[in-house]
C-alpha cells in the first residue's frame, strides 16, 4: 500500500535554511574560502578526489565546504557532479616511472638509484600538538638542494632482473569500467583495482590491517612508495595524436610479498599494487595489501576464508557512497512498512493468546 502525504515542505525549507546558517557558523569568524580549503586542507581535498573519483581540487574544496567538513557527504557531492559531465575519452595509461617525485621511499632497499626522498611527511613528527599553529605566523621557506634530473626507476625493476619477482606483463586490453557497467563477479584485477582506488579509506585500511594480523597473511614489504605529479596524455581524435592535457598528483605503492610458491608458480616474490589520486599514502598502502590478498586464486594460494580474500565481500562493501546510501535510507519514512509489521505482531500475539486460553480450558 502506498500512501502519499504532504506537509513536510515548510519544515524541509526551514531545515535547509538552518543548515546554511549552521554551516556558516559564527559570523564574527571569517568565512573560509575555497582556495583556503584547497591549499590548507589539501589532504582532505585529496581524499575527496580519490573516493569521489574525480580529480579537481577546487571542486573537492567546494564540496568540503558545502558538506561542513563531512568528507563522505563531500564525496557524495562529487560523485553526483561527476555523472553530469560528458566524457571526452580516456587517457593513455599514466607512466608512474616518469613521476616528478615529491616523496619516494623503499622499505626493502636502503641504497637505491634515486635515493630515499622523504618529502613532506608526518612520519618523523612527534605527534605533539603544535600550538604555534594556533597563532598567526609566517612559515620559513623549506630548504632546497641543487639536483640533477635524477632517474628514479621502480624498485620492482631491480628484483625483476634476477627473476625473483613475478612480472607485471604489458597488456593493452581496454579495461572494464564500473562507472559504465555494474560491478559483477567474478571481477578481473583491472576492475578490482578501479573499485579499490575509489574505496572508502577506513574500510580498506581495516581490511589491509586484518591481513597483517593473520587473516590471509601475505607478509607485505613496501617495496616502494612514491608520491608526485605525472603528466596525463590523451589522444585527440580531431588531431590523430596524443597531447598532454594536464597533470595529476598520485600516490603509488608497490608491495613485495613473500611467496613460497604454489602448484602453478615457483617460489618468488609476488606483488600488490596501490595507485590513488592525490597524496594519499595510507590508502595506497592499504589498497596494495588488499589487492595482493584478493589475488589468491590467480597465484594458486589456498582460500583460508579470510574477509580480505573474498572479492564479493570486499568489492560490494568498499564503496562508501553505496554503503551510506543504503544505510541512511532506513531513517527515511517507512510508516507503511512499519504499520504492516505492527499489524503482524499484533495478530501473532492475538493468536498466541487465544491458544493459551484454549489450552487452559482443556
Amino acid at each position: 500500500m502506498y500512501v502519499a502525504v504532504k506537509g513536510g515542505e515548510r519544515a524541509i525549507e526551514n531545515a535547509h535554511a538552518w543548515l546554511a546558517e549552521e554551516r556558516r557558523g559564527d559570523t564574527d569568524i571569517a568565512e573560509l574560502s575555497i582556495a583556503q580549503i584547497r591549499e590548507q586542507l589539501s589532504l582532505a581535498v585529496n581524499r575527496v578526489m580519490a573516493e569521489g573519483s574525480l580529480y579537481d581540487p577546487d571542486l573537492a574544496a567546494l564540496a568540503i565546504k558545502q558538506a561542513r567538513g563531512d568528507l563522505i557527504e563531500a564525496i557524495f557531492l562529487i560523485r553526483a557532479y561527476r555523472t553530469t559531465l560528458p566524457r571526452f575519452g580516456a587517457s593513455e595509461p599514466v607512466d608512474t616511472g616518469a613521476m616528478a617525485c615529491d616523496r619516494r621511499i623503499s622499505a626493502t632497499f636502503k641504497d637505491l638509484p634515486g635515493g630515499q626522498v622523504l618529502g613532506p611527511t608526518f612520519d618523523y613528527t612527534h605527534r605533539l600538538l603544535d600550538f604555534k599553529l594556533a597563532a598567526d605566523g609566517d612559515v620559513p621557506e623549506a630548504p632546497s638542494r641543487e639536483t640533477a634530473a635524477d632517474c628514479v626507476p621502480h624498485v620492482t625493476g631491480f628484483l625483476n632482473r634476477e627473476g625473483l619477482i613475478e612480472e607485471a606483463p604489458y597488456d593493452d586490453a581496454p579495461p572494464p569500467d564500473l562507472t559504465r557497467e555494474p560491478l559483477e563477479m567474478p571481477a578481473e584485477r583491472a576492475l578490482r583495482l578501479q573499485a579499490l582506488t575509489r574505496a572508502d579509506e577506513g574500510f580498506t585500511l581495516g581490511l589491509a590491517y586484518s591481513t597483517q594480523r593473520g587473516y590471509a597473511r601475505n607478509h607485505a614489504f613496501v617495496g616502494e612508495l612514491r608520491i608526485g605529479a605525472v603528466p596525463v596524455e590523451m589522444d585527440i581524435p580531431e588531431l590523430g595524436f596524443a597531447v598532454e592535457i594536464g597533470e595529476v598528483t598520485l600516490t603509488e605503492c608497490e608491495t613485495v610479498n613473500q611467496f613460497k610458491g604454489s602448484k602453478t608458480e615457483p617460489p618468488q616474490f609476488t606483488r600488490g599494487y596501490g595507485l590513488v589520486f592525490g597524496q594519499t599514502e595510507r590508502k595506497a598502502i592499504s589498497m596494495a595489501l588488499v589487492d595482493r590478498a584478493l589475488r589468491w586464486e590467480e597465484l594458486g594460494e589456498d582460500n583460508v576464508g579470510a574477509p580480505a580474500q573474498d572479492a564479493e565481500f570486499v568489492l560490494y562493501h568498499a564503496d562508501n557512497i553505496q554503503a551510506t546510501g543504503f544505510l541512511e535510507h532506513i531513517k527515511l519514512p517507512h510508516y507503511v512498512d512499519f504499520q504492516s509489521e505492527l499489524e503482524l505482531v499484533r495478530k501473532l500475539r492475538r493468536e498466541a493468546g487465544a491458544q493459551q486460553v484454549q489450552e487452559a480450558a482443556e
Partner: protein
Amino acid sequence: MKDTLIENNPRQAWMSLLAVAPEGRVATLLDAAQERPAFTWLRAPEIGSTMVRGRAGATGAPFNLGEMTVTRCALTLSTGEVGHAYIQGRRKVDAEAAALMDAMMQTTLAARLRTAVLAPLETEVKHAKSTRAAKAAATKVDFFTMARGED
C-alpha cells in the same frame, strides 16, 4: 611536461605546454603580445571529463583510476586556421586562449608568439617544477655508517 614530445611534433609540444600553464597565464601573455584575431567557434568551450588510466604494477594491464575535469573547444580564424584546446580543469576562458594560440601558431605570427608566449611559459613551468624538485632533493637521506660490528 615530457621533453620527448617537443622533439617529435611541435604542435603536440605547444598544445601540451598551453594545457599545463597556470590559470589565466596564457591569456595574459597573449594579450600583452598580440591583438586577438577574429574567429568563429567550431565547438564552443565545453566542460567534461577524461578517464585517467593507470597500469597494474605500473607496467601491466591498464585499469581505470578515476576521472579528471577537462575543458575543450575548437575555433577557426578568419584566415582558415583551426585551433584546438583540451586543458585540465573547468577553465573556459583559458581554453579559448589556448585554442587561439594553437591556431595562431599555424600562421605567420608563430615566431613572434613563440618568443612572447611559449618561451616565457616554458621557463615558468620549468622553474616551478625545479623549485619543487629541489625541495624534494633536500629531503633525500644521506646515509652514513656510525659504527661497524666486526672490529
